[in-house]
């Protein structure tokens, strides 16, 4: 009898340990024994793919808003998205991207408490795509509620998205990964253009214009899937519509050697080479309009 009791206790304890949410798992960076490594380790993603697969772009846009002194506004967020309503994998992937950008915006403004609902939606959609195991829900939620460490939160959010993306690509679902990236980009572009309308600023104007080349690469990335079905065809056509507004925008460069100095043990390098965007007010207005239209159509579907 005693034996059975102990075995039962043992079973319960081990079950508890086994089911324990290993929420810190995505923070792992287990270092290999370097002696066993080959001479070179390169990223698996090819050169151009590394560029579009940038889940940090909304953070950079939000950082620029903060430099400009733009206050936080919930009106830019895709609040109407309902995590329970997506029917197709395409919609789930697109919304996962859009909500990822919203999460980045909220985190950058340290609106972490209000981000909890959004984090739950991201988890729900990620589960629907069978990538929920890569979204570090419990830890992100805990850090968000505690408002304990912004950098860890940014790290975990970006890392979770990178892992979900990697899993999709490695499991022959690259089309969903591409559409997720489109979602991230379109939402970040929406933030930029909406803020530009309310708080015109030359730094933001340049950043919007500089999206020309990034958008071209994004279109190339999604192009193989444009004939997949109606949903892909629609998004491809939306992206081409936006790109058409960028057609006559020019980006020029001036040459110069970087200068460097040391301050408090930090090497500070200043580029003197510059890039400049030539964009008229009309072109900017058209980009703002079309971005708003496309983004709102995407979240209304």
């Amino acid at each position, binding site marked *: 009898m*005693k*034996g059975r009791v*102990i*075995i039962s*206790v*043992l079973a319960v304890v*081990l079950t508890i*340990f086994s089911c324990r949410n*290993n929420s*810190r*798992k995505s*923070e*792992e*960076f287990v*270092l*290999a024994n*370097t*002696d066993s*490594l080959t*001479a070179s*380790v*390169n*990223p698996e993603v090819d*050169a*151009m793919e*590394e*560029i579009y697969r*940038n889940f*940090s772009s909304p*953070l*950079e846009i939000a*950082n*620029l808003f903060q*430099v400009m002194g733009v206050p936080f506004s919930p009106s830019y967020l895709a609040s109407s998205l309902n995590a329970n309503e997506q029917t197709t994998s395409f919609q789930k992937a697109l919304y996962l991207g859009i909500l990822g950008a919203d999460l980045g915006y909220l985190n*950058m403004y340290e609106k972490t408490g209000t981000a909890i609902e959004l984090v739950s939606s991201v988890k729900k959609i990620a589960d629907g795509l069978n990538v929920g195991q890569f979204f570090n829900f419990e830890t992100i939620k805990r850090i968000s509620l505690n408002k304990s460490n*912004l*950098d*860890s939160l*940014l*790290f975990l959010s*970006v*890392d979770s998205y990178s892992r979900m993306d990697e899993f999709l690509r490695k499991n022959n679902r690259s089309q969903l990964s591409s559409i997720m990236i489109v979602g991230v980009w379109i939402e970040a572009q929406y933030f930029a253009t909406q803020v530009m309308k309310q708080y015109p600023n030359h730094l933001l104007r*340049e*950043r919007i214009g*500089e999206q020309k080349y990034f958008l071209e690469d994004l279109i190339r990335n999604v192009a193989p899937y444009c004939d997949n079905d109606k949903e892909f065809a629609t998004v491809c056509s939306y992206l081409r519509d936006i790109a058409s507004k960028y057609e006559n925008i020019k*980006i020029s*460069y001036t040459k110069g050697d*970087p200068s*460097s100095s*040391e301050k408090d*043990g*930090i*090497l*500070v*390098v*200043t*580029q003197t*080479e*510059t*890039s400049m965007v030539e964009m008229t007010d009309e072109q900017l207005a058209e980009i703002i309009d079309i971005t708003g239209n496309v983004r709102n159509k995407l979240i209304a579907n």
Partner: protein
Amino acid sequence: MKKYLLGFLLLLSGYAVLYGQTQSDPLVSKCLLSTGPTAKYLKDFRIQLGQSTSQDAFRYKANMSLWKNTRYRFTLCTADNSQGQLILNIWDNSNNVVLSSVDKKTGTIYNYVDLICNKSGIYQIYFDFTEGQAGSGISIVSMIQ
């Protein structure tokens, strides 16, 4: 009874050891904490390299878009078990060196490099360990306000 309890304790301690081994590597947390109070995390690169047979070129290459009017900080953290120290070079898309974390004149190796970017574009980020030695490390890219 004692036999069952002993078995239970052995199993439990075995599980605890295994569980402990899967916990996060402190290097990531340590590196994140060392980026500075005004730094905001953007991206990280995890580098693991064995001993190189030649020291000609940096072996780990990645691409990254950097945007004008942004101050980026590259924090370089080397794992304790590494033989070399993590170093960095950045090149622009015209194949010009933008920065190096090693000052060849003085021999100083910087663990923090700030780039005040004035040209948006795609940059090649190269990492290696000093003298082509084996090592593991992480580089965190942050934005500084």
